[in-house]
């Protein structure tokens, strides 16, 4: 059997992460209710990205995950960003 080392994430850590996520959610809802033009989109997406980071790092245990899986995550996210950039370069400068 192939056993894997496990890092048990404490209840306390998970609880704190939830608090952070809820706080960020409140901030997004309040900030986007103001009309800041294009900044609304940027702020909402940055906050969403931070929330995503917390979910992946702590809830999905990437913090203590094997290096191969972490590298994969970075590759997939880079691919995602690249496709977005290429598409928008096309639309913006067509």
């Amino acid at each position, binding site marked *: *059997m*192939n*056993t*894997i*080392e*496990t890092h*048990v*994430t*404490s*209840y306390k850590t*998970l*609880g704190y*992460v*939830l608090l952070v*996520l*809820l706080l960020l*959610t409140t901030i*997004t*809802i309040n900030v*986007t209710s103001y009309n800041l033009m294009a900044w*609304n*989109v940027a702020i*909402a*997406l940055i*906050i*969403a990205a931070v*929330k*995503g980071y917390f*979910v*992946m790092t*702590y*809830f*999905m245990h990437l913090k203590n995950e*094997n290096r*191969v*899986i972490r590298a*994969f*995550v970075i590759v*997939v996210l880079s*691919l*995602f960003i690249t*496709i*977005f950039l290429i*598409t*928008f370069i096309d*639309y913006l400068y067509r």
Partner: protein
Amino acid sequence: MEEKSLHTEEPRDDYAAKMGMWLFIFTEILLFAGLFLVYSVFRFKYPVLFHQGALELNVTIGSLNTVVLLISSMTVAMSLTAMQKNNKKLALTLLFITILCALIFLFNKYIEWGAKFNEGLYPGSELMLKLERGHLLFFSLYFFMTGLHALHIIIGMVILSIAFIKIRKGTLHIGKYMLLENGALYWHLVDLIWIFLFPLFYLIT
């Protein structure tokens, strides 16, 4: 992991199981990435109509569902922690709360979609087809993306329910809990997707 199950279990490879789950998660991320790309391009082409469309969505229900999903994501992670600490009862309780949250989410979605359906707004309806192009695209994407997400909620709920039954039966235990771990990973993915869907559809107005 403790080596308790070494002599009793069939040969298995937990690391491979987890790796397989991650690979599947990547395909899911790319599936939604494609949809987010479509959303962004049309939003860029029809900024005003997308803005008006977003104003018609129910922010209260959207926010409530965000909170419900975030809580459920924590409880399922805690359930795994409880399992790793061999606290079966706590693991079951937390898993039950997670499944309950999934049901609350779906119920809210039912109310939200139901209200839109009552207004005559649903894919293929006469009202929908009469909408302006940008508006039509917004609502088509809204129904498709939140619908696909809701389907993921249902699948996640089924997987977690199976884990729940297996823990009760004792076939899922501290020496063998990969199903719970992978089910939890899937549930976090569902949460992760909602984290992006929520501001894009409900908030950016």
